[in-house]
């Protein structure tokens, strides 16, 4: 196919437009000012199709118009960084041996609130495409989820639907879902969060760019036929019938087709005929073609009449903006198209040439011989950016003036402990991750249930560790610390396996940036993330932003989620969370006084969300270095990050994982019992080691300047933790069933 020779950058039928109404502008998510700006940049009034394209490209989702200035604050440089944030569909880091890891996390919150199963499933589908677009083979998925309370029917429907959707897509693709997190709070009731992270592996020289360059090279659209999926506000889309309202429909995923796409694309890349590869995500063909052209420095011409479609009567507007899933745009060397198409058809995939790279740096859209849109690429990829006024939220005055003296200390520590263990935020996550195939690929050395997952890298002695973390409550109470601790915790989880954290990805789930208080939270959290990333030496190589997370006028807790990647050079020198041997000693490494501020305990037992969470980055760095050094010296039998629920819960989790009890009855405190047992200060790790290793561990801690407290021993069939005394199996059964029953509506 060629572009009709007659086109000259002038539009057919572009003469008389009336100014769009406010409602029409709202449909394409543009302000009146943005409309004026678009008119100025174009030198004429945009037509309706162009307006839709500009609106899509200038949306927060594609253009990051509200967050771009803030994202610049995140450190992105590092020796190992091969592809940094914002350059391609995902970031890439070197892991040695000529190999690179490609990774990214992305949200699918709003679609999941509408249709939880398909919303979550297509979220997984989208992040997978971002990874294999780079030529990498996806090797692991993680999912970070936030739900509303499970004691109402709708909450369970959303939670089970979301988990089911993640499971369906990942399982069918054969990519193991090896980690993630789940947290429940009423702020997520109407707006659950679904963040999916994918990690892929590739040889450096095979990294593929999503670039459309080389005038005359051809654009192939491969995969699913295009339907009206996910098109928003196309009410005036149909040029013929401006009244027709072709509302978009909810996207339904097809992991089977995506599996074929994955294999076909990786095979196609071997043929040396691919110039660039780009998945179709938000705004579909529009952003994928425009962004590829933007990277290539030229333009693209799209012939919409060549697009295979699933529905009748689709307009050029709909074809350009459809978000039908499981589609890829391949930029093929001119003349090599048939070679590529034969690869696709062998995999049972339909493909069409739908356009070509042109030298004029424009997006030209043609429908047969009608020229329907012509917009400079430059103006599309450079969305206007905004910063908003920030205002410290007033609630902070109240939450920060919290005093623990208002709360009575625990009366029955064992009962409180069991209640904590069974609470849905602490109970075992197995009811969720057992629905995920976490073993396919035969690389999973440490499966979900530990701190970070560990995957071997076949053909080397190495392993990679991956984890996601984020704490909405902490961020709500102290946004800077919330951002910083998401980084610290993700990295700490990595360190507990022995791996060195080397890079991060992040997903920023916040409320409306137009609210000065929400913008304050966003800005502070990013500053916190930046500070922690710098301190821990972990550059941010990719990420995603999801704003306007609110329902019924209430914003969610600000929830930055961090995905971390670590590298372990010698797989044999790894550590896991379970206590291993009766008689081993148990100690906690790290920071001093545990505090109740912002703890799960305060929330579960006293229904209080208050206090000022704290984090000292230098302590965190020293702690993580120490634990890696101890693991590498093979001094530790277990290491487990002390997080939600504090020390008592961390000890219990290590005991359950090891199937052996704890003898720490002599543990006592000068302070409050609840603080000692359930207080949650950052920067603590529970470790165990043979008694012979005790002096070496203590000495290393002293050298590192990291506090070291011996707690007791591994052994027996009870959990004896200070005043807590309960049979291991009883405690374990509460912990095992807590979330299971809640999800089943039997809590």
């Amino acid at each position, binding site marked *: 196919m060629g572009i009709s020779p007659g086109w000259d950058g002038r539009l057919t039928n572009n003469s008389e437009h009336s100014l769009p109404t406010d409602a029409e502008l709202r449909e394409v998510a543009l302000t009146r000012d943005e409309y004026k700006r678009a008119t100025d940049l174009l030198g004429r009034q945009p037509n309706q199709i162009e307006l839709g394209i500009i609106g899509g490209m200038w949306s927060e989702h594609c253009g990051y118009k509200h967050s771009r200035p803030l994202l610049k604050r995140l450190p992105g440089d590092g020796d190992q960084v091969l592809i940094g944030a914002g350059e391609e569909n995902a970031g890439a880091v070197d892991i040695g041996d000529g190999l690179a890891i490609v990774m990214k996390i992305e949200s699918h919150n709003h679609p999941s609130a509408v249709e939880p199963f398909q919303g979550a499933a297509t979220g997984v589908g989208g992040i997978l495409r971002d990874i294999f677009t780079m030529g990498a083979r996806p090797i692991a998925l993680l999912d970070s989820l936030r739900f509303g309370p499970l004691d109402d029917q709708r909450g369970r429907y959303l939670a089970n639907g979301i988990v089911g959707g993640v499971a369906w897509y990942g*399982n069918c693709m054969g990519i193991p879902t090896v980690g993630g997190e789940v947290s429940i709070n009423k702020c997520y009731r109407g707006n659950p969060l679904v963040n999916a992270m994918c990690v892929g592996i590739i040889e450096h020289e095979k990294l593929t760019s999503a670039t459309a360059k080389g005038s005359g090279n051809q654009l192939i659209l491969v995969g699913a036929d295009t339907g009206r999926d996910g098109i928003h506000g196309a009410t005036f889309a149909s040029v013929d019938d401006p009244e027709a309202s072709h509302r978009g429909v909810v996207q339904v995923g097809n992991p089977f087709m995506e599996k074929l796409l994955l294999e076909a694309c990786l095979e196609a890349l071997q043929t040396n005929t691919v110039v660039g590869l780009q998945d179709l995500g938000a705004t579909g063909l529009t952003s994928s073609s425009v962004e590829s052209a933007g990277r290539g420095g030229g333009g693209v011409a799209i012939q919409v009449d060549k697009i295979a479609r699933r529905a009748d009567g689709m307009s050029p507007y709909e074809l350009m903006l459809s978000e039908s899933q499981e589609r890829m745009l391949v930029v093929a060397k001119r003349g090599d198209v048939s070679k590529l198409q034969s690869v696709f058809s062998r995999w049972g995939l339909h493909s069409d040439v739908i356009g070509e790279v042109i030298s004029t740096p424009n997006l030209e859209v043609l429908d047969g011989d009608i020229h329907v849109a012509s917009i400079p690429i430059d103006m599309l990829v450079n969305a206007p950016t905004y910063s908003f006024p920030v205002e410290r939220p007033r609630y902070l005055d109240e939450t920060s003036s919290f005093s623990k003296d208002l709360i009575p200390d625990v009366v029955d520590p064992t009962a409180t402990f069991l209640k904590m263990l069974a609470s849905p935020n602490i109970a075992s996550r197995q009811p969720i991750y057992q*629905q995920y195939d976490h073993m*396919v690929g035969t690389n999973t050395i440490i499966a979900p249930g530990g701190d970070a997952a560990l995957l*071997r890298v076949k053909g080397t002695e190495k392993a990679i560790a991956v984890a996601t973390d984020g704490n909405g409550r902490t961020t709500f109470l102290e946004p800077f610390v919330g951002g910083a601790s998401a980084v610290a915790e993700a990295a700490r989880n990595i360190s507990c396996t022995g791996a060195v954290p080397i890079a991060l990805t992040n997903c920023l789930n916040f409320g409306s940036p137009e609210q000065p208080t929400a913008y304050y939270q966003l800005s502070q959290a990013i500053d916190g993330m930046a500070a922690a990333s710098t301190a821990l030496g972990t550059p941010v190589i990719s990420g995603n932003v999801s704003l306007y997370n609110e329902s019924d006028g209430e914003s969610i807790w600000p929830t930055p989620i961090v995905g971390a990647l670590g590298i372990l050079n010698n797989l044999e020198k790894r550590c896991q969370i379970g206590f291993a041997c009766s008689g081993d000693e148990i100690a906690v490494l790290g920071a001093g006084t545990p505090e109740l501020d912002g703890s799960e305990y305060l929330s579960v037992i006293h229904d209080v969300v208050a206090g000022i969470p704290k984090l000292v980055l230098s302590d965190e760095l020293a702690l993580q270095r120490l634990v890696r050094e101890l693991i590498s010296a093979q001094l530790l039998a277990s290491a487990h990050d002390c997080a939600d629920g504090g020390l008592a819960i961390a000890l219990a989790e290590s005991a359950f994982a090891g199937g052996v009890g704890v003898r720490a009855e002599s543990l006592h405190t000068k302070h409050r019992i609840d603080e000692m047992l359930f207080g949650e200060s950052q920067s603590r790790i529970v470790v165990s080691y043979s008694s012979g290793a005790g002096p070496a561990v203590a000495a290393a801690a002293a050298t590192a300047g990291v506090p070291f407290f011996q707690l007791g021993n591994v052994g027996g069939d009870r959990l004896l933790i200070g005043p807590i005394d309960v049979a291991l199996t009883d405690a374990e059964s509460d912990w095992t069933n807590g979330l299971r029953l809640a999800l089943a509506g039997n809590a």
Partner: protein
Amino acid sequence: MKAAVVVFPGSNCDADTLYVLKNLLGIDARYVWHGENCLHENTDLVVLPGGFSHGDYLRTGAMAARAPIMTAVRNHAAYGKPVLGICNGFQILLEAGLLPGAMLPNTSTQFRCEWVHIRVESLETPFSSTCRPEQVLRLPIAHGEGNYVIDHDGLSELQDQERIVYRYTTAEGIDSPDANPNGSMDNIAGICSSDRNVVGMMPHPERASEESLGSQDGLTIWESVLDGMGD
């Protein structure tokens, strides 16, 4: 020995299976595409790997069972040569009529990925011959439809002919209902054909063939077939 790992659209344990056969056991193992009409020459062993062939749409294994390669697999089986279907491969063998019965969704109606124990019930198949009688193996499962059903007569026949090769049990080897992860009849985890050379099993031996993955019990299954070949 030559092994063929059949690749259907949507197979996703094909690479894991090939890796075990080739890299761990040193077998000359190759992929065979579902659209082919024949196996490689002198193929000794055919493995139908796990995954979601054709997305598991309509019924698990249904569309794959009708692929062109299945005629060759059928012939291979008719010669008495070993065929192993793992997970989705088992489902395909059922749909192809190479093994009796059918698969329903797990009673939980959820996908389950976890470690289970199975007891070896018959040593008279190519995939259990070197096991100890009643040996208990620890292997992972990962499936949404492993709830094996067969009519009353069919079940009696399987029992009478000792064609139930593996049953789900506790770690101690007891086939209690608690040990059954999916509701399958009689705790069936794997069965064989009347000629005993075609075996289908839900657990994944290829995921339990290395110590670092948590178990090497799957090796006994591969070693049985090697042993039978006199390799």
